[in-house]
């Protein structure tokens, strides 16, 4: 049951491909629907079609960046605690 081989980026890209294709199609469709059906926001700043896509992308990148920052300061080997 040992690991066969280390991961490599080509295999990862290949495995990701179907998810990325489906995700991209649904994302584009949701943008079209948002535009066609007339986007409505709660506060004004969110009142344009595509707001959620933009916000989702930015939020995702900021969250990962902040997590990496915290990790740089606080990550330790998983043998750090002996219990």
């Amino acid at each position, binding site marked *: 049951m040992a690991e066969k081989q280390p991961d490599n980026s080509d295999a990862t890209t290949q495995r990701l491909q179907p998810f990325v294709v489906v995700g991209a199609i649904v994302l584009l469709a949701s943008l079209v629907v948002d535009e066609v059906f007339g986007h409505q926001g709660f506060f004004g700043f969110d009142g344009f079609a595509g707001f959620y896509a933009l916000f989702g992308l930015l939020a995702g990148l900021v969250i990962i960046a902040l997590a990496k920052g915290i990790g740089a300061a606080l990550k330790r080997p998983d043998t*750090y605690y002996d219990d």
Partner: protein
Amino acid sequence: MTASLPVPPGLVLIVAGLMLPALPPRARRAVMLAAPLLALALVWLVPDGPALSLPFLGYHLSLCDGTAAGRLFGTVFAIMAFGGALYALGQTNVVELTAAFFYAGSALGVAFAGDLITVFVFWELMAIASTVVVWSAGPQAAGAGMRYASVHLLGGVLLMAGIAGHIVATGSTTFTAMHTDSLAHWLMIAGFLVNTGAPPVSAWLPDAYPRASYSGTVFLSAYTTKTAVYALLVGFPGAEVLIVVGLYMVFYGIFYGVLENDIRRILSYSLVNQVGFMVTAIGIGTPMALNGAAAHAFTHIIYKALLLMAAGSVMAMTGRSKCSELGGLFRSMPVTAITGIIGGLSISAVPLTSGFISKAMIGEGAAEAHMAIVWLLVTAGAVGVFIDIGLKWPWYIFFAKDSGLKVGDPPLAMRAGMTLFAFLCIAIGLFPGALYALLPFPVDYTPYTVGHVATMLQLLLAGGVAFVLVLPLLKRTATVTLDTDWLWRTGGPALAGALTTGAIRARTALAVRIRSGADRLVRTIYRHHGPGGILAASWPTGRMAFWATLLLAAYLVLYYFG
């Protein structure tokens, strides 16, 4: 016709739990499945208002008080007990099963408690029973179980002090809505928050829960935190401090979850994150937000248990629990993978799943209350959850690299537990009306509008784009991320050790100084008063006469001139 006394639903699970060790395996399994169903039926037989009262030290314990919120939480607690028991049918550790049933019954006891003393009693019984569930996993859980018990001891002390202060000030033991207007109420809210996994002691949860057995963690994920959510919902709706605390929990869970490698610890951090959404909603305090908190607690119990069932299955079948040692299990564990992914989609609030119809109400609650920053943070939190649990978690377990592990799905009972909860996630997502009808306030909300579905998909998939863009940066590492529990696991003991060493050194130095001082004193006395000392020697008669005459003369002179 005389009305019969209602049976507290929790009592059924407690009695069933105590019976389990005495039963042969076949009967034990039957009781494990029948007792939660009986409890569920009893939940719906509890009438509105206090129905069972016992005198206690001059007060009345209200053991069976029917409310909409209590019935909602009671329902999902009983469903959870059934699903957890089904998943755990193969568990041979009867101590764990007994403790788990006692724990679930105590949580039901809180849900139907009409007074604060009853709340406290069941609160403490939950703490004891859940500690036993953690310890049941064996020696590797001993330290974590002790830390878990210590933190809950602290929470219990805070809660008891608060309750005592409240009773002294008001003379009432009724468990009803309060405000953060006195020290007693602050102590109570702090006691409740400890059990939600709130800061600064959030670390107790990801420390202890992943140490329990494959089935124990499933039970643990449901009761302690959601009973605390129930207590806050009833006791402190609209307390603004909860918004700040809840949002901290939302992002704490995401950041630490993104960094974590252990598949059950990732879900534990995510548990804090999800409870954070509920705590935030309770702090907003409008009927929409409170309904959102209650609905999210209901859906969350089911999808979080499902995720932990899937993680437990992976752990039980592969013997591994680290993302860095897993991957590619989709083909060999298809049931686990599909049900786990359904759990991941539900927690991410993807349309057609249970999380979508509950989390939407929390966002709507913030928007209705015109809390733009809270709404933005809650919405960003939804993106974080999708990246952490909707994508990263299943990716590294079921896809990503081929770890070479060739194992099958777990035994039938475990598959049945996962399938049941996956079915509920989809059913609640497709037909939210049944859940909405149980909520504490009347619901006038339609989650499935074209606009809402489209914008939610946009939000999540754009977050997915961010995930794909930075995937190489998310490579799993065999690490832990330091948390506040460092203070009591490493920092505190190190400080205590340093203080002990310092105290020993200071005491030794002081003893040396005292001893040398005493030696000098003894030597001086000996020199002056010893056999050769000047003060101890016998003086000649002539010298004595001389000094006596001199002193007399001096006296005469002084007398004469005085």
